[in-house]
C-alpha cells in the first residue's frame, strides 16, 4: 500500500517528496512588526510579491497579500516551529496552521522542465519572467498548483494531497520524452 511515486526517463526524474513540513501564516504581511518577527525567527525576509526566499532551513513563499507559506526541510521540527512562531505573533491578528499533510511536493529534475510546465500552465515561462526566486501559483492542466526553481534544472511543484495521484499521472504523461517541445 505504499505510494511510491517515482518516474524517470532520459529527460526527467520525477518524484514525490514527503519529508517537508509546511506552515501557513496568515497576517497582513506588509506590516513592519510582522516582517520583523518573521525575519528574526526564520532569518529570512518576508518574500515580496510572487517571490520565494530561501536559506538552508526554510523556504518562505509569497501566497497572497495576507499569506505566506513556510516550508521546512525537516518535517519533525514543524510542531515546535509552529508553537514558537504562534507565540511570537500572539499580539498580532494572525493565524498559523500546520498544513504538512495538506500538500504534496513533486520534484522535477531535468533541464526541459519549462517545456513540461508550458504544456499545462498559461503563464509566461521564459527565463526573463520566471527565474530563480520566482514563486507562482497557477494551474497545471486542471490542477491548482504552485512552483518554484530549486536549481537551473530542478523545480518543485506543490499540489493538494488528494490530487497527487492524478497529478502524478499528469506529470508522467507530460514528461514523455518524445512529446517535449523544444521551445524555450
Amino acid at each position, binding site marked *: 500500500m505504499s505510494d511510491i511515486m517515482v518516474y524517470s526517463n532520459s529527460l526527467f526524474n520525477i518524484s514525490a517528496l514527503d519529508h517537508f513540513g509546511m506552515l501557513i501564516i496568515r497576517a497582513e504581511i506588509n506590516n513592519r512588526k510582522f516582517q520583523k518577527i518573521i525575519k528574526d525567527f526564520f532569518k529570512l525576509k518576508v518574500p515580496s510579491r*510572487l517571490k520565494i526566499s530561501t536559506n538552508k532551513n526554510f523556504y518562505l513563499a509569497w501566497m*497572497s497579500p495576507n499569506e505566506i507559506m513556510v516550508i521546512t526541510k525537516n518535517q519533525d521540527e514543524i510542531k515546535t516551529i509552529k508553537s514558537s512562531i504562534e507565540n511570537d505573533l500572539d499580539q498580532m491578528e494572525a493565524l498559523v496552521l500546520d498544513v504538512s499533510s495538506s500538500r504534496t511536493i513533486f520534484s522535477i529534475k531535468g533541464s526541459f522542465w519549462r517545456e513540461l510546465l508550458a504544456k499545462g500552465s*498559461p*503563464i*509566461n515561462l521564459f527565463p526573463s519572467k520566471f527565474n530563480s526566486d520566482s514563486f*507562482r*501559483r*497557477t494551474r497545471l492542466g486542471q490542477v491548482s498548483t504552485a512552483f518554484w526553481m530549486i536549481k537551473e534544472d530542478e523545480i518543485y511543484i506543490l499540489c493538494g494531497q488528494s490530487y497527487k495521484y492524478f497529478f502524478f499521472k499528469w506529470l508522467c504523461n507530460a514528461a514523455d520524452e518524445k512529446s517535449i517541445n523544444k521551445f524555450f
Partner: protein
Amino acid sequence: MLKFICPYCQVEADETELTPGGEAHLKRMGPGSSDQEFYNYLFERKNPRGIHFERWLHSYGCGKWFHVVRCTKTMEVFGTYSAQETNPPKKILDIVKHRISSGKKIK
C-alpha cells in the same frame, strides 16, 4: 480569451485562471430593506454593451477578488482595482473618459 492584471499579484492572469463574479459595486440589501429594494439587489443586473464594472476572482492564483472595468463590446480593459474599493477609482474613470473622447467607438 480575456486576461486581466490582478491588482494583488500584478500578474497578467489568463481567463482560465480566473472566475467571473458578475456585476460589481452592488449594495447589499439585508433585513429592513423593502421588497423592491431586495428584489433589485438580488435579481436586477446590468448587462450593457459597453463599459461594465465587474468582479473577478483570481482563483488559480492568490485567491483574491478584484474589480475590472472593461468594455463588453470591444473587450478593452480600462483598469483593475481592489475588491474593497466601493467606488471605481478616479484614475480609472479618467482612463475610460480619455479613451472614449479620443475617438474610440465604444458605444
